[in-house]
């Protein structure tokens, strides 16, 4: 893991004292609320429905036990004893007081963390594959590059007052778990003739105008990365629209100018910008790689795992759903579900955080990850430790066996916390999860991603859910629109709108009809929902959603 050097420490300490000063100057009137706003946003502080919200970066989703324990401490001391893990590998505190925020930032700095550029019209916290450095299928660990991007983008003088926010995601695996095609820039690590480089995707994004990103170059040599990123952002900072915030993201710029024109402008700028990088970044990159060296994997017998697997059906069910293949023999990647049916997706209590910190230290080489699916991951656990780990997780309600299943729902905060919401999303997630849990159908249904947003801004990624749910307001009544067939992976696709929306009451039965239709139509248990959908298209599912239309037609 990356550890802060003296430069990073001094940077954060100075930045925090500047923010402390900005808070005071806001209070004494030197800064207007308008002027204070972007300054607090670039330090992660939002004003929400009930209170301020502090969004803390977990860069590329990686943290250690000590950091997780500090997040728990902050939740207890300055919030209500819990935090909310988000789809962008952040943790949000929903109840801080403005005057406490500088102290919270200092507490984060103690463990090498910050909230810089988690909001505002800046380059945001860079996200990465949450299985990085552990999964069996990756070409290279993307995190050293992500760290390089973090440093380059932090406090970048050209890019603090851009048309809109800018999000970068990176994956080192051909199986895209970082949703790179739905980011302003997506980076896929690739190799060409033995040389390391990137496929660069620009102009993806969800929100009110969902767009799948377009490839701007299919091979960028590794050493050109920072100047190239800088060129893309610089061109957009110049020509991106500032007259309408809904047209400001780079996806609209790419759409309006066309990818060829953007490519031409970027190449032109790259020719100028490239010379301002001496190459020192590549020396640093080589150093950072050593920070992310794999832990010393141990070799020991796996008999304990086999015994538990055969004798304990609850452990078996958890192992079948919550483990993923690790690159090291005898190891597994463990996904801890923060989505117990009926709870708020992504909310973790301070006790749960402390337990996960302890378990990471005891069984997981002191590493944790936050996934964009709002779960916590222990990337390196030896199989023989899994039964003990599972038993410990059960104590804190963290052993739910539902990773990838219908109750592993992504939901945005919605009406419960968000000032922009047009409908509730958390309660809908809770209802769906509870319903299918009661039916005991979840494991039978298998892999199925439901994603819910409480308004058109799409923080819950509903466009790329196998089943996407968008909560709107129709004359004061919540109305939920359903999209089907979305995909967030390397075969990314925006889901198809099924038809008219449903009231909150009608929604869960409607989802149940879609799922029943799938169970009916699939060729067998091996055919996942999304595969059946791809084979048959929208029609049969639409018929299931709107049986009354069928009846009318008959």
């Amino acid at each position, binding site marked *: 893991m990356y550890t802060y050097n003296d*430069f990073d420490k*001094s*940077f954060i300490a*100075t*930045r925090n004292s*500047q923010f402390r*000063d*900005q808070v005071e*100057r806001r209070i004494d*009137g*030197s*800064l*207007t609320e308008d*002027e204070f706003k*972007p*300054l607090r946003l670039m330090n992660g502080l939002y004003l929400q429905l009930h209170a301020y919200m502090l969004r803390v970066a977990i860069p590329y989703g990686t943290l250690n036990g000590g950091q997780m324990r500090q997040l728990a401490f902050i939740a207890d001391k300055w919030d209500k004893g819990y935090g909310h893990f988000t789809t962008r590998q952040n943790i949000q505190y929903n109840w801080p007081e403005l005057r406490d925020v500088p102290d919270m930032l200092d507490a984060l700095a103690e463990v090498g963390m910050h909230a810089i550029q988690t909001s505002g*019209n800046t380059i945001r916290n860079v996200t990465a594959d949450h299985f990085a450095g552990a999964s069996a299928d990756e070409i290279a660990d993307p995190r050293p590059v992500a760290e*390089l991007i973090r*440093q*380059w983008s*932090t*406090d*970048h*003088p*050209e*890019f*603090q*007052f*851009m048309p809109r926010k800018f999000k970068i995601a990176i994956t080192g695996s051909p199986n895209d778990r970082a949703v790179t095609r739905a980011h302003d820039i997506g980076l896929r690590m690739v190799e060409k003739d033995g040389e390391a480089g990137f496929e660069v995707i620009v102009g993806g994004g969800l929100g009110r105008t969902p767009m799948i990103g377009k490839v701007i170059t299919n091979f960028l040599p590794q050493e050109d990365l*920072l100047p190239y990123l800088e060129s893309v952002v*610089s061109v957009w*900072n*110049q020509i991106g629209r*500032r007259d309408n915030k809904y047209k400001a993201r780079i996806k609209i710029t790419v759409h309006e100018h066309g990818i060829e024109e953007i490519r031409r402008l970027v190449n*032109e*700028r790259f020719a*100028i*910008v490239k*010379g*301002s*990088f*001496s*190459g*020192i*970044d590549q020396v*640093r990159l080589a150093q950072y790689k050593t920070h992310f060296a794999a832990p010393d994997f141990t070799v020991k017998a796996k008999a304990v795992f086999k015994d538990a697997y055969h004798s304990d059906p609850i452990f078996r069910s958890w192992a079948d759903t919550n483990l993923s293949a690790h690159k090291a023999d005898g190891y597994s990647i463990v996904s801890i579900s923060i989505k117990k049916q009926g709870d708020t997706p992504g909310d973790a209590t301070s006790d749960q955080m402390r337990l996960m910190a302890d378990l990471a230290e005891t069984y997981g080489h002191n590493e944790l990850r936050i996934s964009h699916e709002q779960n916590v991951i222990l990337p390196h656990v030896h199989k023989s430790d899994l039964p003990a780990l599972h038993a410990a997780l059960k104590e804190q309600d963290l052993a739910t066996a539902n990773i990838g299943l219908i109750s592993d729902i992504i939901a945005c905060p919605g009406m419960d916390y968000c000032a922009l919401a047009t409908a509730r999303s958390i309660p809908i997630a809770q209802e769906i999860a509870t319903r299918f849990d009661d039916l005991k159908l979840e494991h039978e249904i298998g892999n199925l991603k439901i994603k819910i947003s409480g308004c058109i801004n799409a923080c819950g990624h509903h466009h790329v859910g196998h089943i996407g749910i968008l909560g709107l307001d129709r004359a004061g009544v919540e109305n939920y629109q359903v999209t089907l067939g979305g995909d967030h992976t390397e075969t990314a696709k925006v889901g198809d709108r099924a038809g008219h929306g449903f009231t909150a009451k009608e929604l869960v039965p409607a989802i149940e009809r879609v799922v029943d239709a799938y169970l009916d139509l699939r060729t067998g248990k091996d055919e996942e929902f999304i595969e059946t959908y791809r084979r048959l298209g929208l029609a049969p599912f639409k018929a299931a959603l709107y049986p009354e239309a069928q009846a009318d037609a008959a």
Partner: protein
Amino acid sequence: MTILVTDTGFTADTWDQGYTPFGEAANDVVSIDVPADTNPADIEITPTLKMVRIDFPSFADGRGFTIARMLRLTGYTGRLRAHGHVISDQYPMARRIGFDEVEISQDLAARQPQEQWKFRADWKDNDYQDRMRG
């Protein structure tokens, strides 16, 4: 009267040759006023050019930073001034990107007195760009 801000704080404006609006500039122009929506590639860097003043219509509009950087990267070495709604918290960004100075209104100077600007005269410290670019 406007106020000029440099690393030493507030000073009187020392530039007395005025500005030619960008677009009316001839080959022998000495100083130009550049609006925020200018394409930096259209600014011709002639041997006589001594002063470029870039407008910031609002502190939230960061296009001027890109124009300044592109001018510096394409070889402009004369005086470079940020003009308009720039706040003291942006001073280090302006300096790091290549501006020499910032010109602000009396009103803004009254609200953000010179200590608040001098507080950020340490803009050379703690700069990640330095470490990434070398």
